[in-house]
């Protein structure tokens, strides 16, 4: 009877196509919302798993979180190195990871940091070794795959955080010393180097005080071309001071969570933002819009179901003769019921599957058109269990829409069948 249901659907191809399209639009809308909502929320949570506090220049706390943890927005500014040193010695700080931003390679951000960054994101070295000496860099898994970078290869960063934004630092090429294991986090799309390397690239003179990229080094022992042997913070060639963009902090204890943010926000020129709070605020910001769009999607799905219902009911009436004929030829009531039900299920199933294809097709297109989507770690090829749920819901809508026409056929008055032929 499936073959017959298909034949009937093909026989009124235009109506069938319209119904499929209606349900495909509804499915795609719901699936897109589920995809973006789920992946965004997961990535936000994953990105903040090991970070309790972000310290940066004053400005929007959300911007600070987005730029420092998710690497999708412009930083709020820089903070002096002295601030980092003060916090490093704070008893409430268990670990502190500096970030120095400002350059990119092929659109991938170059992040000046230290080895603790790797453990924050659970990244390991897949090939080669981590950065240690100046001008050394390791590439995230996605960066290495997309740029085709190999160990030992040199590359030149460009000023700015987006591709083709600023001039290239041709005078200071970096060397790939390692490639990171994939983590499913933003680390896959970053290029890591030492904070000193970032300073060097920008011609900022410094001496190695904080140990970025030099774990185990005794800083007093380490001689460097830029070393300035005095207590004050060193000044660059053009009066630029070594600064960092942000600090990622893990608390040592619960008391620190109460004390540190308020201390930083009230007593310094910096701001402290909680990733958990800002992420929740960010999700809540989109949450209402997501829910509204979802409601609209389900309304569309209900409209699709109604269209199938109208089509099948009309069809069941106009096809009374055919159905009577099938009964005469040997079809039982259940087979006729199943034929109508299959038509509803095939229409809604086709709509849901088309919706699934459209969803992932649109995500691929969106990713190539808007790099921020990839930067947020949203994969167009990931299938979510909720999508299967939407497919099942669409099938249920199709079955429900077909139920009444199918029952009408099932309960048809057989004693008058031949009279209708």
């Amino acid at each position, binding site marked *: 009877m499936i*073959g*017959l249901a298909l*034949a*009937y659907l*093909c*026989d009124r191809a235009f109506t069938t196509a319209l119904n499929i399209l209606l349900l495909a639009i509804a499915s795609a809308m719901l699936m897109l919302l589920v995809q973006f909502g789920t992946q965004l929320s997961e990535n936000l949570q994953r990105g903040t798993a090991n970070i309790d506090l972000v310290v940066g220049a004053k400005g929007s706390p959300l911007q600070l979180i987005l730029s420092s943890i998710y690497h999708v927005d412009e930083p709020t500014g820089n903070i002096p190195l002295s601030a980092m040193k003060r916090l490093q010695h704070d008893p409430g700080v268990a670990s502190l990871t500096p970030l120095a931003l400002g350059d990119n390679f092929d659109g991938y951000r170059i992040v000046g940091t230290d080895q603790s960054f790797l453990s924050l994101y659970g990244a390991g070295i897949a090939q080669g070794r981590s950065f240690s000496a100046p001008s050394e860099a390791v590439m995230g898994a996605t960066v290495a795959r997309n740029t085709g970078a190999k160990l030992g290869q040199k590359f030149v960063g460009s000023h700015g955080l987006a591709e083709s934004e600023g001039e290239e630092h041709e005078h200071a090429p970096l060397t790939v010393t390692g490639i990171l294991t994939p983590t499913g986090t933003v680390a896959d799309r970053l290029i890591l180097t030492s904070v000193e390397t970032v300073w060097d690239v920008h011609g900022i003179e410094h001496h190695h005080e904080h140990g970025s990229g030099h774990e185990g080094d005794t800083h007093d022992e380490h001689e460097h071309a830029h070393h300035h042997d005095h207590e004050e913070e060193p000044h660059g060639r053009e009066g630029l001071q070594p600064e960092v963009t942000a600090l990622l902090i893990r608390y040592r204890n619960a008391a620190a969570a109460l004390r540190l943010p308020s201390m930083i926000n009230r007593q310094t020129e910096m701001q402290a933002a909680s990733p958990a709070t800002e992420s929740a605020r960010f999700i809540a910001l989109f949450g209402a819009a997501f829910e509204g769009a979802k409601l609209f999607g389900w309304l569309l799905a209900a409209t699709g179901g109604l269209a199938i219902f109208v089509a099948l009911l009309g069809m069941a009436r106009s096809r009374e*003769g*055919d159905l009577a*004929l*099938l*009964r*005469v*030829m*040997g*079809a*039982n*009531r259940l*087979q006729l019921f199943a034929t109508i039900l299959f038509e509803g299920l095939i229409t809604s199933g086709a709509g849901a599957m088309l919706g699934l294809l459209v969803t992932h097709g649109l995500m691929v297109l969106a990713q190539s058109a808007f790099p921020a989507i990839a930067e947020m770690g949203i994969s167009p090829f990931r299938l979510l269990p909720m999508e299967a749920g939407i497919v099942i819901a669409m099938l249920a809508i199709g079955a429900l829409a077909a139920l009444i026409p199918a029952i009408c056929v099932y309960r048809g008055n*057989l*004693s*008058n*069948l*031949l*009279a209708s*032929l």
Partner: protein
Amino acid sequence: MSFALHIDNLDFRYNDRPVFSGFNLAMERGRHHLLLGPSGSGKTSLLNLICGFATPNSGIISVAGARMTGLSERQRDALRRDHIGVVFQTLRLVSALDVLGNLRLAAKLAGVRPDDAHIAELLDRLGLVHKLHAYPRTLSQGEAQRAAIARALVSCPGLLIADEPTSALDNANMEKVAQLLLDTAEQTGATLLVATHDERLTPYFDAAVRLEGAPA
């Protein structure tokens, strides 16, 4: 004696009006009968009863030796499927399927495995093999009629029923259709029962049963 259809002392009331009262009919296998009567004389009611779509108030209807009366709906469906082929006045080919698809569907519904070679042979016998993949809307009236006959015969039923097959035809075409039904029934070994008000068909059949009862 072996009967393709045997009706014994049939009583049937429709909306409290008697349609058949003590009606009898015995059709030997291989003998072809006309069921003659004007519109409303009960022809359609009788076909409904023979096919098992309606149940009589009393009496017995047997098809191919099996009693249709007293069976459950499912059993009646099975008996009809296995032994009866029907050609309708309006032909009613499934418009969504081509001729081959219509015959395959009929075979499947009759519980017979569709055999394309048998279908082609049947259509060839009816001069319609070149329309194997044609859709009903592209067929002429005559072609559609032959396709409907082929469909009724695809499962090799013992009893072939045709309802008003010639009512709208001129003499020449009436004769063609009558001959086609009789020849096909002979070739397939089916017993033919034609329900009609068309008296022109009388000379072609072995026997005619006249219905003049109250309208159904």
